[in-house]
């Protein structure tokens, strides 16, 4: 591993145990009939990859191919059953936007709480506070309980906190799934700004346009296994999303703003 490695995934495997029967009664009946009580499902299967600092990598693949699980292994929510996952620096991301928001607390209190959950100190949050508020653009609702917010406002506030965490690695899921068109545009600009500042980005998306614009490298997962790792455009062709690309892949067309996870 080199000194400029940001994320190192080494033969990582994550297996989920699916339980068919939850109660004692169901389990007894199933045992008598000789049915399986549990089944396993390999969400991430022996994946190895290395991401350098400052790289922005698109993570692509069909639904259920293990993208989100891999992201959760990288952000530390889950631990691999086999292999290792190592990271360098603080991780932030859009996996947990709005996680931990409490409906009874005001927008202001929730900003501090959410930022603390992502690892920011009180001072750091205070320093970024105005930017967070400006970006979320919720105006006079700041002192109102978050429970009274519209779903759009709720999502904007969550997104705003997440993108203002001082991070070294930024994991982006559901990036463009929030808000109206102007806000999506603002999000894309902000992502670009994060990218420019040299933060390592892992970006999960089905939108070929934004992957092509944001990322120089694409990793494709297929049923938990590493299917492709290489140039962005080759990766997009590999998953056969290149039909979706606008004629000029690098212009901000409507197609890339698709709300998809």
């Amino acid at each position: 591993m080199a000194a400029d490695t940001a994320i190192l995934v080494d033969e990582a495997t994550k297996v989920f145990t699916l339980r068919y029967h939850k109660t004692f009664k169901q389990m007894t009946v199933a045992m008598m009939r000789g049915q399986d009580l549990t089944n396993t499902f390999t969400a991430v299967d022996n994946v190895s990859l290395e991401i350098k600092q400052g790289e922005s990598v698109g993570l692509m693949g069909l639904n259920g191919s293990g993208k989100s699980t891999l992201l959760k292994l990288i952000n530390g929510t889950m631990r691999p059953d086999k292999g290792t996952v190592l990271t360098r620096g603080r991780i932030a991301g859009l996996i947990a936007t709005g996680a931990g928001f409490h409906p009874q607390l005001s927008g202001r209190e929730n900003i501090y709480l959410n930022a603390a959950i992502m690892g920011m100190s009180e001072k750091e949050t205070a320093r970024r506070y105005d930017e967070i508020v400006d970006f979320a653009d919720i105006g006079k609702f700041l002192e109102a309980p978050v429970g009274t917010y519209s779903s759009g406002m709720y999502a904007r506030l969550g997104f705003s906190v997440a993108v203002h965490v001082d991070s070294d690695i930024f994991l982006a899921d559901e990036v463009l799934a929030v808000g109206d068109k102007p806000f999506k545009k603002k999000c894309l600009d902000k992502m670009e700004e994060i990218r420019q500042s040299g933060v390592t980005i892992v970006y999960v998306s089905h939108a070929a346009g934004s992957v092509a614009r944001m990322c120089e490298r694409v990793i494709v997962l297929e049923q938990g296994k590493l299917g492709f790792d290489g140039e962005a455009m080759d990766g997009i062709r590999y998953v056969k999303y290149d039909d979706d690309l606008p004629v000029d892949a690098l212009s901000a067309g409507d197609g890339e703003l698709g709300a998809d996870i």
Partner: protein
Amino acid sequence: MTDAPVEARPRTVRHVEGDLIPPSSNQGLLEVFRRHYLLNLLVRRELAARYEGSFLGFVWSYINPLSQFFIYWFVMGKLMGAHQNIPNYPIHIFSALIVVHFFTETFGAGTRSIVRNKALLTKQAMPREMFPVSAMLVSLVHVGPQLVILIVFAIGSGWAPDPVGVAAMFESLFIAMVLGTALALLFSVANVFFRDFGSFVGIATNYVRWGVPMVYSYEMVSNSLSHWATVLYLSDPIATGVLLIQRAFWVGTVDDPKHPSVTAMPDHLLLIGLGVLVASAVLLVIAQLVFNKFEKKIPERL
């Protein structure tokens, strides 16, 4: 935003200090106290959550123990005649109730804490011990004002602080705190796998209330149980915790120091308390080890 090609745009090179480490690594309870700022916010959130949409709010946390107090005081004190045998019976109950309530609240809320916070736990890496610990601190927040009420009534009944009593009070609260956290850790993770554990805790707390010399005196226990049964009885850490807090407050209010209910209390109470506290701390270490073993499976089982 410019529409220039990716490679043409200038990029800052960012060098990150620090080592490659597993992103999920943490030091359990130590990590929880290292991130005390987050813990503080979580406790406040929990306090806000507990009384959400309630008009009386914080007052409810007194209504529960007070209603228990009046039931015991009326049924046991008035109807069953405990007033005659136990001097200053209300203080006997109320001092015990503070410790018992602190413990059962920590145990109960702590057990539910991880399942209740699943939205957060399945998305963000953080020390998961945070939630049982914050449940304990939320319960501890309520102990303060209850102690103030107790002290006011104790002084009214002729109590004055003494060094042994103060030590006994701290031992008592620490026992409830350490033991409550240990059990909250164990049961919070067990509750993720089988919600049955949550129901079990409800029953267990019922036994805790009656397994301590709160509504009856320790004198009655030592008179009716054999020596070994008494030892067994005292091996319940909360029973020791209750005796300690009664030593701290109730004993000082009894006019006659030779009263049988006072002399019946076990000798070397502080020493017993210390032993129980050490045992609780050992259990806390074991609980942390068990927690470490199973917490890996928490996100997928929620």
